[in-house]
């Protein structure tokens, strides 16, 4: 800044100009400052409006923290249930309370000791112990608290705390139900049922179900069985038997899940590539430099806008009516929306190509098709490929959502598992699979783009 104001004032007529400019500059700054302040203020006002419009206070007040607790616990752990049914006078030990995970009556897990009749002794973590006694009496020995007795008397469930103890917050009592929640185990008694749940980390029976000979073996034992031990099933080698038991695991349904995941990827692939194949020739007709006829060009552009504007949601509704639920409907819904998107993008890419290459090819006497093949496609291919790969990746994720709407692929399994409100470990399994698949698609498409387009 070597110019001082006096230098500028030396020239006649410069003074008002400078003053005006300074004024303009200062005003500009002031205006910018105001704008910088206004943006957070507008956002704040909008935020306040949203708090009322969405009734955030009520929503958060109605939130169910116990649901969150159950969900988080179920994500990474499973429970084994020891249940006594008053109606059938039977005690059943079952993983997740499912029939497929039921232990045989004469071979319960080692922490459950069966007596005669109702009598059952259950060892629990942290030195706790639950006994089911005759006549619907249960005694809970809880370390650092004492002996809690719960019993059914007539129509009511009664609770006796150790003498001198106040009601702790982990016991909840009503006339018809007493429940004790200790984090890694739970107990509850109603008129019809006495139940104890013990939680274990991990996913139950993920590899082999109880009826498989490979259940409960350590990785070392499994490796030994697979490699050199005698055949468990004389019909096939152990490793094949293991693969088959895993694949047909009837609690986790690995084969069905794998198929569903494949269906989802298939939906994305068919939808994206189909859209690309339809959009490419149409894009030539919609580009200014290839179609001099305005009517065709404009109507095609509107057609693309229409396809894009009719949301994927609307397409799924319309297409489900024609094709029924399934992966084909999903891929057609993706195809519809993306034909619009690709048509627009490809025609814009066509308009941006370098005319010199086409002229060069033209000068050798090439016809229209040859001009397109050698003058246009080489310029267009990288753009098209990179868009297709990018959309393939993002559509894998969309296909999950669309699958949930049209009833196909992993999206369907996911919604079904969430609707039961108890198979959260399956939800977790599917989510991990989806995230890994999407990330894999991302990596593959990124690698392909680098490999074929830049190098």
């Amino acid at each position, binding site marked *: 800044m070597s110019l001082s104001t006096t230098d500028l004032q030396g020239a006649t007529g410069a003074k008002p100009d400078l003053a005006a400019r300074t004024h303009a500059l200062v005003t500009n700054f002031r205006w910018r400052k105001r704008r910088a302040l206004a943006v957070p203020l507008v956002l704040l006002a909008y935020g306040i409006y949203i708090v009322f419009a969405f009734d955030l206070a009520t929503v958060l007040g109605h939130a169910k923290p116990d649901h969150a607790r159950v969900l988080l616990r179920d994500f990474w752990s499973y429970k084994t249930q020891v249940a006594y049914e008053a109606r059938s006078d039977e005690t059943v030990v079952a993983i997740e309370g499912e029939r497929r995970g039921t232990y045989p009556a004469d071979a319960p897990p080692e922490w459950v000791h069966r007596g005669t009749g109702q009598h059952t002794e259950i060892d629990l973590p942290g030195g706790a112990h639950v006994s089911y006694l005759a006549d619907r009496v249960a005694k809970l020995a809880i370390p650092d608290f004492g002996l809690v007795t719960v019993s059914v008397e007539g129509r009511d469930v009664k609770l006796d705390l150790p003498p001198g103890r106040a009601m702790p917050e982990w016991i909840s009592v009503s006339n018809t139900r007493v429940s004790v929640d200790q984090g890694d185990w739970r107990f509850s008694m109603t008129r019809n049922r006495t139940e104890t749940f013990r939680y274990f980390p991990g996913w139950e029976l993920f590899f082999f179900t109880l009826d498989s000979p490979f259940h409960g073996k350590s990785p070392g034992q499994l490796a030994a069985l697979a490699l050199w031990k005698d055949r468990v099933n004389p019909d096939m080698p152990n490793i094949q038997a293991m693969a088959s038991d895993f694949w047909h695991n009837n609690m986790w349904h690995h084969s069905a899940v794998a198929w569903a995941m494949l269906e989802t990827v298939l939906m994305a692939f068919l939808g994206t590539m189909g859209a690309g194949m339809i959009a490419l020739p149409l894009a030539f007709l919609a580009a200014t430099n290839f179609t001099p006829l305005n009517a065709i060009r404009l109507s095609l552009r509107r057609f693309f806008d229409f396809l894009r504007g009719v949301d994927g949601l609307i397409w799924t509704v319309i297409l489900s009516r024609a094709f029924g639920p399934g992966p*084909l409907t999903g891929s057609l819904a993706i195809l519809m929306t993306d034909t619009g998107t690709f048509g627009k993008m490809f025609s814009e890419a066509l308009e941006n190509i370098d005319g010199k290459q086409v002229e060069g090819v033209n000068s050798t006497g090439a016809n229209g098709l040859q001009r397109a093949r050698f003058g246009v496609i080489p310029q267009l291919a990288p753009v098209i490929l990179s868009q297709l790969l990018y959309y393939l990746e993002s559509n894998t994720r969309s296909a999950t959502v669309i699958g949930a709407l049209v009833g196909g692929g992993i999206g369907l399994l996911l919604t079904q598992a969430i609707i039961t409100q108890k198979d959260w470990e399956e939800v977790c399994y599917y989510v991990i699979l989806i995230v890994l698949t999407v990330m894999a698609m991302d990596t593959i498409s990124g690698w392909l783009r680098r490999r074929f387009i830049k190098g």
Partner: protein
Amino acid sequence: MSATDIQMTENYLAQTRRKRLYGGLILVIFVALMASGFTVADDRNAGGFFEGFHRILDFPKEILAEALTKWRNLPARLWAAVPALIETLNVAAVSTVVGGIGAMVLAVLSTRGLAPWPRLIPVFRRMMDVMRALPEIVTALVLIYLLGGGPVAGMLAITLHSFGALGKLFSEVAENSDLKPVEGLQSVGAGWFQRIWLGVIPQVAPNWSSYALLRFEINIRASAILGFVGAGGIGYDLKTALQWGTGRYDSVVAIFALLFATIVVVDTISDRARARLVRGGKLDEGRI
């Protein structure tokens, strides 16, 4: 022609032949994949492609016919769907704003040269990858279980996704920003926040806003879809109207029309705004 020339020509022709072979092979594999994929999808679908193809227009015809006979109801039906539409737009707007702010933070935290804790860059990147890969519908359905149905679940789900999606794009932009202003600010003793706010944000603001606008378009669609699974808004209205079936098709048509119009209008406005932001005020020539 000299010997080297002949050699070169032959090499060139051999290379072309090889390229053609590879191209042909890739084409064959691609066609095979498409054909087998189509067959599998067709087999596993409830209705086949060829039986369903001529029925595509049946449903639109049916609802349009009903809407036409009850055309007097249409303005009322359109008006009735407006509050739900506003809810859908609000969900999209809030999740774009909150998602954008979160993404700004994540982007700065995961960009080399700007990150306050360079060692944690890979951690933030992986976090964004996971948030991006997680489909909104999963988060939304879990949140509906925790919070009950309504727009808040959808909003949180879309916000979470926007963190990851925008964060990645933002950090790509920030990566390409010029670090000289940052160094200049550092030399006059500016703190970390001042360096980012005055040195980086002005450079990246146009591109970041452009990406945020694009995300807003995407989020409107997502918010409509999440409504369909119980997260409020126009999607929920559409679902109830569809469940009623015949007799409420005028509502269905009204909702379709409103959603379509909204998407087209927002897309057009945001297209122009983005063109201005990125290309400096000029819509490119030749575009209509």
